[in-house]
């Protein structure tokens, strides 16, 4: 399902898996990502999988576009991959202080907050990718009745731990960061831990996430907080 490879500048390959955003396409991207990582191809210094694209950066001192393109085109992706996708429970508190966009969402979606939360919690979400800021997972797909646009004016600072939704996706702000997603609550869970150099991300592409609603007491009693 890799449809086309082109160059993104002179030091990266742009691998296009189509325009759809769905689990099947993304799994194909992740398959290429894992295979290339395991192969440790000389000169490749970064891989960025996203919904339906894979960007492969390389060191132009060591190799070039046509060399890497040739290797990717001849890549055997049928090899069994020994990766364990995890299922992760993420506790979220939707107390007034954390649900920054409660009233905006009620208005936009024409639902009560209770209805919004019922549609959001206790469902399996798939992690398509991580990035933008370190460890931020892009999860999907959320209920069709919860889909809305980003804020017209993004916030300068979204608090760490905020859980946001926009369009068909949900995410978690791993740091205080600028951002425009609709914030429905906050998790006490540490989603990015840079003291774990080997595996700092709690959630990785291909993993499954289930959000569980917790009370303010449970939030404040959490070890991670």
């Amino acid at each position, binding site marked *: 399902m890799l449809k086309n490879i082109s160059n993104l500048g002179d030091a990266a390959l742009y691998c296009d898996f189509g325009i759809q955003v769905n689990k099947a396409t993304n799994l194909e991207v992740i398959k290429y990502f894992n295979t290339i990582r395991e192969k440790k191809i000389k000169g490749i210094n970064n891989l960025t999988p996203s*919904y339906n694209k894979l*960007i492969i950066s390389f060191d132009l001192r060591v190799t070039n576009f046509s060399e890497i393109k040739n290797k990717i085109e001849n890549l055997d992706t049928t090899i069994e991959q020994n990766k364990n996708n995890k299922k992760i429970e993420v506790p979220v508190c939707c107390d007034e202080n954390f649900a920054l966009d409660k009233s905006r969402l009620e208005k936009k979606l024409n639902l009560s907050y209770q209805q919004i939360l019922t549609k959001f919690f206790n469902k399996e979400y798939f992690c398509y990718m991580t990035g933008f800021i370190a460890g931020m997972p892009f999860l999907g797909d959320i209920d069709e009745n919860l889909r809305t646009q980003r804020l017209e004016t993004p916030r300068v600072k979204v608090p760490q731990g905020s859980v946001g939704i926009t369009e068909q996706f949900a995410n978690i702000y791993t740091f205080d960061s600028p951002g425009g997603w609709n914030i429905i609550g906050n998790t006490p869970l540490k989603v990015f831990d840079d003291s774990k150099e080997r595996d700092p991300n709690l959630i990785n592409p291909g993993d499954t996430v289930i959000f569980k609603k917790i009370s303010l007491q449970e939030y404040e009693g959490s070890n991670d907080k």
Partner: protein
Amino acid sequence: MRVVMTSNYFEILRGGINTTFQDKGRENLYHIGIPFSGVMDNRNFLLANKLVGNDLNAPVIEFAYQGPHLRYTGDQLNFVITGDVIFKIKKKGIEIDGDCYQSYHLENGDEINIISTNKSVYGYFAIGSEIDLNFQWNSCSINTKANIGSNNGKKLDTGQKINLLKINSDKTLKKVNYIKSKIENIRVIKGTNFDYFSEEGKKIFFEKEFVVSKLSDRMGMRLEGSKIENIINTNIKSEGLVKGVIQVPADGNPIIMLSDHGTVGGYPKIGVVVSVDYDRLVQLAPGSKVKFKEIELSDAETLFKLYEMETENLLNQI
């Protein structure tokens, strides 16, 4: 933080605007959302290390616009400043003007006052010694947005100390004659969303001058000028970014991704700055005029090889 007893150290009398430890950065972390970081201007970084006899990838202090003012305590060592930088050295109460690309001895009690970069942004201060630093993912590079790297991921501040470990034994003074080549255009390869823009928009991109905005930092360089009109969609599904990508958001003003950029983004990519022009691009100060010129991939590759050979020649002269 480790506590090290050391007799050789710098006191930071003034931190400067954006003073950080940098090396060549970190690799293979885009997929978890961590960019390369590392020095903005690679050539000046390599020259600085070579001029004080360090390993070429040793940590250096990068500063932007106004640099730090430092007082040294300890045994004699060498230091150098590279870039286009105005700085003073104070020895026994006497202040002299320092020259870039020339190493100096530093003795107990001496001060270095890095006043400003000249018609440029970044300068490099290399010390002929191992510096006591924390590394994260094999790099000391400070990413102040994600608080990653040495100094707890924060820029260097007034009142802090820089502790040194092992001073280089060879203290021969060195210099190199380096004259920065004047930059005419920034060369780019068309981006993957080039066709999202109107014919008029494409023409503006390649024919009109843009001005570097004040809202530029290690993450990105914002440009202002004639608006580039998008005729397809001002958003794309978020996908990976690389250094040098030029995104055009809905307001029509281009943003160029620099070393600390967000790893994914959802704005259309009109072009990508070629590797050979990156060192010069990052040195364009706010208010500078920029004009883009399209080149082919094969030319970009050849020009980069020539640039690398030139760097190699400069290093060999030291």
